[in-house]
């Protein structure tokens, strides 16, 4: 059992309770995808690629009245400690669904009837908070694909470790901590579009944890914005 926090409130990876892990985002990293991004979020290494809006296959899945959004969250076999079977697990299927539902409010699918937007996320290396990091990359990749969006989607978890509410739960804290609460939001619209909780929180802690996560999302948003700016403006493109 790792000691998760020192008496001085320093966490097992050296961070303070309100500190994010290192985050870096690169935009437009894949040649074939219509949009893409690569994120390193702590030890998470995640790619997101977008195709669409494009024709739906199989055709009977197309909707005359609106575009549809599909999402696959997938982990490479080498991404976790014990080799992962490449077939999608129930966990991956659930995360694909909540990521899809977290992105959907930011899109204007009605404008693209009969089409699909495909979001493919590949976790090359997983650490705590991979679904949040995946979402952060996917949102940036959607923007990179030129798809009109109401807002970005920014995600970050908070949690409870050694009886304290902490920002951005890492792998050890996720395994042995007391609670993990991944949150995604549209930072300008002010809407929470993903929220899950595993662990035990008092009602007071619940509110604090949510606010802490939101604070994290806002800092992630700045990093996402900067990454997009770097590609589209500093390089003189667009």
């Amino acid at each position: 059992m790792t000691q998760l926090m020192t008496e001085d409130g320093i966490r097992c990876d050296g961070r303070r309770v309100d500190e994010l892990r290192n985050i870096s985002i690169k935009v437009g990293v894949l040649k074939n995808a219509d949009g893409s991004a690569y994120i390193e979020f702590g030890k998470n290494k995640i790619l997101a690629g977008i195709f669409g809006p494009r024709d739906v296959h199989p055709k009977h899945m197309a909707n005359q009245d609106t575009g549809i959004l599909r999402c696959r969250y997938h982990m490479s076999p080498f991404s976790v400690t014990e080799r992962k079977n490449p077939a999608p697990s129930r966990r991956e299927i659930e995360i694909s669904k909540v990521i899809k539902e977290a992105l959907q409010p930011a899109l204007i699918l009605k404008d693209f009837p009969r089409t699909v937007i495909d979001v493919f996320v590949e976790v090359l290396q997983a650490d705590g908070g991979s679904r949040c990091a995946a979402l952060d990359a996917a949102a940036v990749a959607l923007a990179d694909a030129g798809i009109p969006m109401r807002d970005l989607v920014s995600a970050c978890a908070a949690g409870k470790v050694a009886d304290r509410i902490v920002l951005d739960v890492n792998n050890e804290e996720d395994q042995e901590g007391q609670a993990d609460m991944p949150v995604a939001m549209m930072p300008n619209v002010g809407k929470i579009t993903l929220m899950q909780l595993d662990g035990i929180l008092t009602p007071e802690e619940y509110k604090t944890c949510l606010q802490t996560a939101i604070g994290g999302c806002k800092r992630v948003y700045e990093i996402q914005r900067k990454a997009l700016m770097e590609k589209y403006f500093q390089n003189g493109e667009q």
Partner: protein
Amino acid sequence: MGSVILDQLKRDRILDLLKEGKRVDGRALEEQRQLSIETGVIPKANGSARVKLANTEVITGVKIQPDKPFPDLGDKGILICTAEILPLADPNVEPGPPTEDVIELARVVDRGIRETEMIDLHQLVLKENKSVIGLFIDSSIINADGNLFDACSYASVAAILSCTVPKYEIKDEAPVLVEGVTSKAPVQTLPVSVTMARIGDYIVVDPTTEEEACMDSRITITTNSEGNICALQKGGSNGFTVDQLVRCSEIALSVGTKIRKRLEQLMQDGKE
């Protein structure tokens, strides 16, 4: 199709009612439907329950049998919750492997029981790292009319409470049933999930299929006997404001308390 227009009309009607504080079936916004819980409905299972939330109806059975522990979890018994929407429960459901909706349903029910630590899994170890007791908690939905989350959750909890756990001993490295000796499941707390839908600016508890079809988003919050919040899942293709999320947690606690009283009764009396 025309279904888009119809859906919009239905949503308008539901929203008009909500503005007056009413719902289509006459309930208040934070009112659950009529809940009935019956245990022991599948005598061949180790535990079982039939739960009705008005027209939503589910039967859950618990099977208990020795198993190998998961790697790295050799000091814990096994707990697995599954769910199936039987094709007779819903004209839109087809037989086949579980859809993403059903996988989410089962995992949310599972986490509600797991994260509250309802069952002390350490008590289900026969021989560390080698042999443990497994609880398989399978829910068959036999009529679907919205809020399968809570129906399956209550049925799973009630089925566990009704369990008769057989005794096993290790002989020659293998688990052997000890005839005639049973115990209750080692229950530590009572998880209660409360599922709410947001429709426009309104939060409604225990949505029907009709309400789910036009809701903006959904949330399931599970609380424990100590009044803590232990598991949460947001669903649906839109979001919540922070205020709504805080409000939802308060509703989950207050509605949960009522349900928990009924489950406590069940635990003490063996029936309601």
